[in-house]
């Protein structure tokens, strides 16, 4: 059986369009230093470093762990670089946890980052390949038809996505690290924002951010000695399926459903809406909240949008299952780090450390990330208690 492990330190940078004051190493370093400070540890206390980020083409540095080792105090230690597309921040946290849960390491540092201002994500994701039709209009262009199909089959009202966009930005306004700070955002403002990839409006999309997130993960003994409350890892799971195959369920991918079932089983969750206190779920386009509410079993099929419209996922409306109190991906999106931010924010909640976006008394929280054509999933459940 897996050894117990817990998050004992969390560090993030402020998320913003361009961190013009730091190098790539400086950005990554800042999150790592903050995590060490939070854990009241030094570089010498770390046994290995696990680094994650999305495609190398975003920064144009091939396998950047090679260059980043000096900034991360890793020399003389193991360094592992994970890349599982958009889910990578979550996968990286899970791989880091496995270093400890396997009993191989006592305490590791994990960092995920993206410095998107070094390039243009649209370019990196859409660079033309010979012999293929060059119609790839970025991630939004890929996901818009899937959202349209969800709208068709669920019969959800047109403004569900607008509501999510407002809710997550209001959440983000409580989080000083969030990139978008829009405390006065309204439904009207979102509705009137530019239609980018119909049905996705500008304000229903995530921003492009620079940022890094780091965590220190320790074994049971060391976590027990941690000066601050640990967040115990109660379950962690990953699933992958191919991008395209005949008959693939794209709206509610089986990989997401299976991954959720696995992590719930590990954490002893039978009804996620009831058993979990809060969830940080990867929602880069607003309509993915109702879609994932169904995919992850928080609502029956076709009814996810009702939870959203009832305010069940809103901190401001005292919802019973707040989703993305940090503001989520809709408020900050350094792609490679976005998944780890979800995982780290879930941990902050159960440590009671989420300040203005704390869900009162949160004891059990979920972090979620997805990537590729909604085909790679990573999830974990963290708790205030060991079991």
């Amino acid at each position: 059986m897996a050894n117990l492990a817990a998050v004992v330190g969390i560090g993030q940078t402020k998320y913003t369009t361009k961190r013009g004051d730091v190098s790539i190493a400086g950005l990554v370093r800042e999150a790592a230093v903050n995590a060490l400070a939070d854990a009241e540890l030094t570089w010498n206390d770390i046994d290995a470093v696990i680094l994650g980020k999305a495609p190398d083409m975003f920064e144009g540095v091939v396998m950047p762990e090679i260059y980043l080792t000096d900034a991360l105090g890793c020399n003389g230690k193991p360094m592992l670089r994970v890349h599982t597309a958009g889910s990578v921040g979550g996968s990286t946290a899970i791989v880091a946890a496995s270093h400890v849960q396997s009993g191989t390491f006592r305490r590791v540092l994990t960092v995920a980052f993206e410095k998107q201002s070094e390039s243009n994500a649209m370019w990196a994701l859409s660079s033309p390949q010979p012999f293929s039709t060059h119609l790839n209009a970025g991630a939004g262009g890929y996901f818009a038809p899937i959202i349209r199909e969800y709208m068709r089959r669920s019969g959800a009202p047109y403004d569900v996505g607008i509501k999510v966009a407002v809710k997550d930005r209001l959440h983000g306004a409580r989080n000083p690290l969030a990139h978008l700070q829009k405390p006065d955002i309204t439904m009207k403002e979102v509705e009137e924002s530019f239609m980018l990839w119909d049905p996705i409006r500008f304000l229903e999309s995530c921003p492009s951010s620079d940022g890094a997130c780091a965590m220190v993960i320790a074994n049971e003994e060391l976590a027990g000695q941690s000066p601050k409350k640990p967040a115990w890892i109660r379950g962690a799971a990953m699933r992958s399926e191919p991008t395209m195959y005949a008959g693939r369920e794209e709206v509610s991918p089986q990989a997401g459903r299976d991954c959720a079932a696995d992590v719930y089983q590990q954490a002893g969750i039978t009804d996620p809406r009831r058993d979990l206190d809060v969830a940080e779920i990867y929602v880069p386009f607003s309509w993915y909240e109702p879609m994932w509410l169904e995919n992850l079993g928080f609502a029956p099929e076709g009814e996810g949008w009702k939870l959203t419209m009832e305010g069940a996922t809103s901190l401001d409306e005292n919802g019973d299952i707040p989703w993305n109190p940090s503001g989520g991906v809709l408020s900050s999106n350094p792609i490679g780090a976005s998944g780890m931010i979800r995982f780290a924010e879930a941990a902050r909640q159960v440590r009671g450390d989420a300040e203005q976006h704390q869900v009162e008394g949160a004891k059990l929280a979920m972090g979620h990330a997805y990537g590729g054509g909604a085909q790679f999933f990573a999830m974990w459940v963290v708790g205030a208690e060991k079991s």
Partner: protein
Amino acid sequence: MKDIAIVGYQQSDLVSDAGACNEVEMIIPVLGKLYEQVGITNAQDVDFVCSGSCDYLQGAAFAFVMGVDALGAVPPIKESHVEMDAAWALYESILKIRMGQAESALIYGFGKSSPGELPIVLSQQLDPYYLAPLWVDTVSLAAMQARMMLDQGLITEQDMAEVVARSRQNARRNPHAQLAGDVSADDVLAQETFVSPLRKADMCPVSDGASAVVIATVEKAREWGIPYAVISGIDHCIETHNLGMRDLTDSSSTRTAAKNAGMHNGAVDVAELYAPFSHQEIILTRALGLDSNTSINPSGGVLAGNPMMAAGLSRIGEVFNRIVSGEASRGIAHATSGPCLQHNLVTVLEKA
């Protein structure tokens, strides 16, 4: 902790240009042979899958996503990827088994380096402010490393040429090798230098290829009833990126990894070392303290063919082959990443 074993290994032929064969088309036949060797149907029959690849080899983001198409991942599978040599994917898989979330794992690596200019592509792995904009290629960095050793009297050009000759000769028994032949050290020395002091023969070729391994707990391996080699230790270690601050004539991180992996707990019959340049094989041999009792790179090593992102995993596979064939009872495999052996992984394999 559960004992973990390698139960199967396959690789593609190593070729200078796989031509009209995309990455998936390169992987599928290798996986097919591996399934047959292990006696499984597909990736559904293992508990975890992990791969290693690099987008920049072919110049397109998300290379690994294509790899998933080779797996038959419906229903969905537990799967992960490292943007590193697949030897590190094997490392990640071992952690997964050790923590009890899997009893078996499929690991594969693939690289099609022929579309680009590999030494220049890899120059973009270097410090993005001070080195990458100079476009200093990895062959030249290795050449400087070789010269340091020559200057300090640590090696001679004859020593380097002998490494090449042995690689070519050993590779004659490796049906997948790209470069093999009855080559002598004198033949090598007769060549002109290319990036002096290196000759072309001192450098590994640019290769296209893939390889794959299945690992499992020893209980599972016995249940499957197939030959296996036990992974008795594995560790890896990285050094500073600043070449000027490393002793380039040594590989301290390899030594550390080998020590932590328990290499010195017994005799080493065979060693497969990921040395892309002839002098690096000497650095590694010395860092590991190997002597003439160890057969070094019986497959020919990567001087006989270097499928990026798979070659490190292949080293482990080659040691596995020698143990299950009875040629060796204990061996080590080494993998490397980064310029001039910056990051190194050592695996120790033993006869069951």
